[in-house]
């Protein structure tokens, strides 16, 4: 199971949670943190890799209101959208670049 909720670390309720990602690192951690901490209902979002020898990454989300898990889901959804837009624009530009070079 790649995602779990950290059982014992400070306040943990629906609005304030630490999620543990198995097998993830700074690549996903920082991307998620940057997106989620921008949401207006999020009070705090941070990530850490607690130990380099453990293949784990923690994401802490604290909300003004609402559930932490919803912010996490929204963050993942937004990241998917970013990927889609990037792929779309890259493909478009690459095709015009190729056809320009061939002509």
């Amino acid at each position, binding site marked *: 199971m790649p995602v779990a909720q950290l059982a014992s670390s400070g306040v943990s309720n629906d609005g304030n949670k630490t999620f543990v990602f198995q097998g993830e690192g700074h690549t996903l951690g920082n*991307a998620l943190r940057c997106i989620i901490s921008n*949401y207006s209902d999020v009070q705090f979002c941070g990530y850490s890799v607690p130990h380099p020898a453990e293949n784990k990454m923690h994401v802490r989300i604290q909300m003004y209101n609402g559930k932490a898990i919803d912010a996490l*889901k929204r963050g993942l959804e937004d990241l*998917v959208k970013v*990927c889609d*837009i990037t*792929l779309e*624009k890259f493909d478009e530009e690459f095709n015009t670049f190729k056809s320009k070079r061939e002509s």
Partner: protein
Amino acid sequence: MDTLHDEKHRIILNEHKIVNNNSTSPTVLDDKFDIKKFRKIFRVVIVRHENYEMEFDLIGLHPFLANTFRRLILSDVPSMAIEKVHILNNTSIIQDEILAHRLGLIPLKADPRLFEYKSNWSAAANEKDTLEFELKIKCSNNKDSSKKESSRAEDIYKNTNVYSKHIKWIPTGNQKSKFKESDVGPIHPDILIAKMRPGHELDLKLVAVKSNGRDHAKFSPVATAFYRLLPDIKIVKPVEDEAAYRLQKCFSPSVITIRTQNNKKIAVVKDSRYDTSSRNVFKYDDLKDSVVMSKIQDHFIFTIESVGAMQPEVIFKEAVTILKDKCLSLLAELNS
């Protein structure tokens, strides 16, 4: 420095410090991340595309995304490399473990998209996740009399240099019908693996698998992938004659050109893109106030140098797709 108060968000490189300018309009950097806005302002411009090297601009992007893509390219996009070496015989002077390490670093042409990750090492080799090679070579005296006089090792001995071209592919299962040797073998035929003398012999079986750069750097599909910010240089006070040539020398070649105007040589910025942003101008007291060096903060120049198994544009798209799939599978798990 009013000339710099334009629409672009830039940082200004001073002699000893970096300062932000007050851009007149907000950019991606100062407001909240918003998908709709991202779609509107994000642009890709491809600048250069040679065989295995590509340079393109990602404009209107948060730095965290640029870095995420770079990290994905380096350590998450998979490639094939030799992982296990069965040493049946090695009488050369190079030690087994060093030989195995050298072999592992040889880039292979095999397209990793056509293979699967090997999940179980104890299971028998599978045509979908393994490529097998053989390196069987023996050094001997060269009987060719025409080379008797020579003192070069290559002439006196046969097979004194072992190159990557001596690696032979052994197809398993249906691989023979799917691939050609040139599709899967070493990309470069002339990588020196070992040097031998008569009587030395190598007999190795090589097993290549798919993995990613996080596992070992040999699985990274790129030689390098990096980004930098677009540099911008502005001449704010006219620089003439001798000073103009001095100014030209302060920057990378082709950044500054000299134009003749009213019988005077005037320095003009031609293209600041390839400037290294060295701050040589600040050596000269008379020049340092006539130039403003800056960097555009949301304009990333990406360079991808592929090792050769995949085209650089494919590597970039793979990286983005990997991130997308990762998020989708995490979402599926959270929703279940």
